[in-house]
């Protein structure tokens, strides 16, 4: 590597020698470098020319850095030419070659020998480096940084702050970048670092970019009337810190070592009249001047050692000392600022060497803090500094008279009230109150001593027969206050007649105005309280001068949504007269509850809604009216808006039947309340329903009467139409019975066997019915009641006499049957004869033997009721059914052929009666065969009813 560098130098020398002309070649070219300022000074000799060509190259890469013609005159004293050049690139970055030649117009001399300014990237300097380092430059300047890479390493990157920048290669190991318009750096400077190919920092530099100083507002003054104290503003931040870069100040050439940070001040021991401040840092300096006479720049120091030699209840004196004796002859103006818990005020005092003042208009028993500052009264310049505060407390004094008022809780009971004395009124700690009740007419006096926390005294007006004067005094350690009086009149005026109007809150209070009253000799009193309060109400009042007819009622106890009653009284020496009243809300709100007792009442197709007034404490505003809504799900349909707040009912008319839900809301100026909802279901009108029923019944009754009358009058026609006369049968032969012709056809299902009865063998043969089924099955069916009952009729052959004797109510058909029995051996077959099981009862009745069941008849024929009569039957052998005892079971048994419909037929005999509804009808007879009951009623009613009906139809009475 050194050999290559040497070859390059030889090549440069050869080129220089090749140029030759008549002009003298500059000799003894010399380079002097100031690397800190990057200035290169080139000097040469032996040339009388005034113009020269200068060429500067980067030696290693032979890149021309500069090639220009410059005019340089010869220094007569030294005979040398000198030309200075400032390199934009730090001179350490790489070696530079400089050569010079003389120029005279177009003629040039040969180049001088090339001079080399060696850089720090020479091979023998192997370390990594970066230049320039630690420079301080102004904001906005341009600057070139170069990085010399360590021998053997490869360049990686170059970073300015945290920005990767582009670089130019200046030599084998040197890379450079130029930063333009640099911004201010942080206190420790701006870092520029260079890294190798492994991204490891190998070198770095720091540059400080800032501003030159720019102070302002230099002002010099004196405090002690001798020395000078100058102050100024620091001005723009220089962004430069540290011993070498910070700003230094001098005042009139003397250093100001205490001018640091924000404390920009400097002092001189003597007043000089003119001052020059020089601020200087690495980037430049700035000058400020000021001039003034001493008497015009006096600013006294703060007074010290404040004391209070005398302190009273209402005034005190304050004294202080001055640090400098010169103030004794100085006319001073001083401000004394006193601060108490009530307020803060400042008073001004003047005097030569002023050092004591008297503070007036103080409050007794009050803590004060005072501080003092002064200035020169003549040619006032500035106020001096405030002194340290001094605290003291004034002495106590007797309190002021309390403000008392008479408040009537009711017509007879009242309270004497007085306001607690404030700090400024009590003039010391109140120890108690004294109340004197004095009646001049009765010449009686009562004295009460009350605790300091008591502010009212109950009064019973009715107990007193005369006017009473109440006197209240307050007491503190300093004495007793003046008395405050209020007169309780013998008769209190009635407050009911007083008109009440409304007053609106205007943001700061309730404005009240009234007409002047002649008797208001001692002014007016306005009191107010919560209207909804009933007991021990908090009453406040205020007094208005007699010449005022308006006031603004203000209180910290007003709350939104609360109605207050304001009462105006005219005050006189005799008594107070209520003049006027107002109601008002500080802020109206929506009612806090809904209307109470909302109820609907149906009036036909109308519904009347009624409700009560909202209680006053819940109104929270003046009720302006009510709105009535019809509620459908969540939708409200406005039905009515009642603007009269006294009206508490509303009728919704012409509603159809159905359910309705109504919502009633009271509203104030702030809006509606949540709404009370009530439901009602409209039903038909009850009275109308009853009327309709009665009308229908009446109409039906009339119709029946008409039909009855018609039927009665046309009974013959009816009888003819519905009950035609059945012609009596004309019987041939010797039939003893005139009635009861029975013309029956043999049943296809029944057979009648004529058997011989062993008992009645001599006289007649008995008729015995033979069931269709086996007789064994008959016995089974009697036991099994679940089987469908098949009534079988067993006609019974009885003697004529016994039949008529034992069955006196037998129907005609029975009689006819009985009659038919008389024929004895007549072949008679019953078919489809229906009878009821009740017919068995008489049979059972006259069957004496206990084991003779209803199924088992006597010696005559009887109807066979298997299902109805057998449940109570004891179990007997089938033989008993198949072979009934001889003598007890004679004659035929007609078979009950219809099927029992009702399950109740399985029951007892009564049930059987019902099961046997429907009369068995003779096939050949048109007459009904009505069943008869075994009971007495059953025996009588059907017969009587049928008789009546029959008589009706037949016209018999």
């Amino acid at each position, binding site marked *: 590597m050194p050999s290559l560098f040497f070859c390059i130098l030889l090549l440069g020398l050869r080129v220089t020698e090749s140029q030759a002309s008549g002009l003298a070649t500059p000799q003894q070219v010399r380079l002097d470098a100031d690397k800190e300022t990057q200035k290169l000074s080139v000097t040469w000799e032996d040339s009388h020319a005034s113009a020269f060509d200068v060429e500067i190259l980067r030696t290693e890469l032979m890149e021309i850095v500069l090639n220009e013609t410059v005019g340089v005159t010869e220094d007569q004293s030294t005979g040398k030419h000198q030309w200075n050049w400032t390199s934009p690139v730090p001179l350490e970055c790489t070696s530079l070659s400089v050569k010079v030649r003389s120029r005279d117009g177009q003629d040039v001399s040969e180049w001088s020998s090339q001079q080399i300014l060696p850089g720090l990237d020479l091979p023998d300097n192997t370390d990594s480096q970066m230049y320039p380092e*630690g420079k301080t430059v102004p904001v906005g300047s341009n600057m070139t940084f170069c990085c010399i890479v360590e021998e053997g390493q490869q360049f990686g990157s170059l970073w300015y702050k945290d920005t990767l920048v582009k670089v130019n290669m200046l030599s084998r190991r040197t890379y450079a970048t130029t930063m333009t318009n640099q911004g201010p750096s942080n206190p*420790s400077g*701006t870092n520029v670092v260079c890294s190798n190919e492994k991204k490891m920092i190998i070198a*770095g530099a720091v540059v400080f970019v800032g501003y030159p100083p720019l102070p302002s507002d230099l002002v010099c003054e004196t405090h002690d009337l001798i020395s000078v104290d100058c102050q100024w503003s620091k001005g723009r931040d220089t962004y430069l810190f*540290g011993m*070498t870069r910070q700003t230094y100040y001098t005042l009139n050439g003397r250093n100001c070592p205490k001018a640091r940070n924000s404390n920009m001040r400097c002092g001189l021991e003597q007043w000089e009249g003119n001052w020059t401040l020089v601020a200087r840092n690495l980037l430049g300096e700035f000058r400020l001047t000021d001039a003034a006479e001493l008497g015009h720049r006096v600013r006294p120091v703060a007074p010290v050692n404040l004391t209070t030699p005398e302190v009273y209840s209402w005034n005190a004196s304050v004294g202080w000392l001055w640090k400098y004796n010169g103030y004794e002859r100085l006319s001073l103006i001083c401000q004394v600022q006193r601060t108490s818990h009530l307020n803060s005020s400042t008073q001004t005092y003047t005097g030569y060497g002023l050092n004591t003042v008297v503070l007036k208009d103080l409050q007794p028993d009050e803590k004060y803090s005072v501080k003092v500052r002064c200035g020169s009264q003549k040619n006032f310049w500035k106020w001096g500094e405030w002194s340290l505060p001094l605290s003291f407390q004034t002495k106590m004094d007797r309190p002021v008279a309390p403000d008392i008022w008479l408040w009537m809780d009711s017509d007879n009971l009242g309270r004497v009230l007085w306001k607690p004395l404030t700090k400024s009124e009590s003039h010391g700690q109140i120890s108690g109150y004294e109340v004197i009740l004095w009646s001049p007419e009765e010449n009686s006096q009562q004295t009460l001593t009350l605790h300091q926390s008591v502010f009212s005294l109950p009064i019973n007006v009715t107990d007193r027969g005369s006017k009473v004067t109440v006197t209240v005094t307050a007491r503190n350690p300093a004495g007793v206050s003046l008395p405050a009086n209020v007169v309780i009149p013998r008769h209190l005026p009635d407050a009911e007649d007083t008109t009440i109007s409304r007053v609106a809150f205007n943001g700061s209070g309730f404005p009240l105005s009234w007409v002047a009253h002649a008797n208001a000799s001692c002014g007016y009193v306005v009191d107010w309280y919560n209207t909804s309060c009933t007991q021990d109400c908090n009453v406040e009042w205020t007094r208005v001068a007699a010449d005022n007819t308006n006031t603004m009622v203000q209180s910290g106890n007003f709350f939104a949504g609360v109605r207050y009653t304001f009462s105006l009284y005219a005050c006189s020496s005799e008594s107070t007269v209520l003049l006027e009243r107002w109601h008002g809300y500080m802020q109206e709100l929506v009612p806090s509850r809904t209307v109470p007792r909302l109820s609907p009442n149906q009036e036909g197709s109308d519904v009347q809604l009624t409700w009560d007034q909202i209680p006053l404490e819940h109104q929270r505003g003046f009720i302006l009216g009510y709105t009535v809504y019809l509620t459908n799900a969540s939708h409200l349909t406005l039905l009515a808006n009642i603007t009269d707040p006294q009206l508490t009912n509303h009728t919704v008319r012409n509603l159809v039947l159905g359910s309705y839900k109504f919502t009633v809301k009271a509203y104030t100026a702030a809006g509606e309340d949540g709404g009370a909802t009530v439901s009602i279901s409209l039903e038909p009108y009850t009275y109308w329903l009853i009327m309709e029923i009665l009308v229908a019944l009446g109409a039906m009754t009339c119709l029946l009467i008409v039909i009855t009358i018609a039927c009665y009058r046309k009974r013959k026609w009816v009888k003819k139409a519905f009950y035609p006369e059945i012609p009596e049968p004309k019987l041939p032969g010797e039939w003893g019975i005139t009635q009861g012709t029975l013309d029956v056809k043999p049943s296809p299902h029944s057979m009648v066997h004529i058997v011989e009865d062993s008992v009645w063998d001599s006289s007649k043969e008995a008729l015995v019915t033979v069931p269709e089924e086996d007789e064994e099955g008959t016995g089974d069916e009697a036991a099994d009641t679940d089987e469908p009952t098949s009534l079988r009729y067993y006609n019974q052959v009885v003697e004529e006499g016994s039949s008529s004797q034992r069955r006196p109510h037998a129907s005609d058909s029975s009689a006819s049957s009985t009659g038919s029995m008389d024929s004895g051996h007549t072949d008679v077959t019953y078919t489809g004869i229906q009878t009821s099981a009740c017919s068995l009862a008489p049979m059972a009745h006259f069957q004496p033997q206990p084991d003779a069941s209803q199924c088992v008849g006597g010696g005559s024929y009887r109807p066979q009721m298997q299902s109805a009569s057998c449940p109570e039957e004891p179990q007997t052998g089938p033989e008993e059914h198949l072979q009934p005892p001889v003598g007890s079971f004679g004659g035929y048994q007609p078979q009950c052929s219809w099927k029992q419909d009702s399950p109740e037929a399985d029951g007892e005999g009564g049930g059987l009666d019902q099961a046997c509804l429907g009369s068995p009808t003779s096939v050949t007879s048109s007459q009904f065969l009505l069943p008869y009951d075994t009971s007495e009623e059953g025996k009588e009613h059907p017969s009587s009813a049928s008789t009546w009906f029959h008589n009706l139809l037949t016209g018999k009475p």
Partner: protein
Amino acid sequence: MSGHVKNMCPQLTISQAARTLLSLLLVAAIDSVSAAVVCRKQPCGSSLQRSLKLTKLIHKESVDLLKTYKVSQGDMSELFCQMSINNVPDPNISGLDPSERMLSIYSHCKAFLPHLKRVTEQQTDLQPPSSSLLSKLSTAHNRTNGLANQINCIYQTLFPNLPIPPEPVDGPTSVPPSQNVFQQKVYGCVVLKRFKEFLSRVTRELRTLKSQVCTRRTTFADTNALF
């Protein structure tokens, strides 16, 4: 004290200068004795425990100090500590037996002090006066000095027959000569990084020493008490 001497030897005539000199010598002697007494009065575990707590505190503060330092140095300062700087004390503690290692700790503490002071001076020129870095550097310097004194005291207590060499046993690490601003930044970062690493090692070392040395001494003391 001079009066006391005079009362004991009333017949002697001592000049005022000689008495003053004698007083100074006596005070110095008492101070040195009292210091030695303080060191010896401390129980073994208690002294080491106190030093261990102080070391932990300094170590904790050194971590914060290094963070503050890096933040105060501008961009890319995170990489400054990775650069190599000569003449900065090595954080490793040398020695084979406890006495040597205690001595190494002491000498390291002493060795770091001038470097911390140099970093403080350099940063004073680079930071605003209100910078917290300056106060932290000052605190670290003072606490390290106190730790060195405590280690010295413990060493005298545990190894009363072994003298403390006047120079650090690991060899002097002189503060570097004049540096440019960038070198100062890198130097400070390396110093504080090694200082933090050293304190970490000291913490471990004191813990080990406490368990080794104090247990052994207690055993010896118990053995002596039995006989």
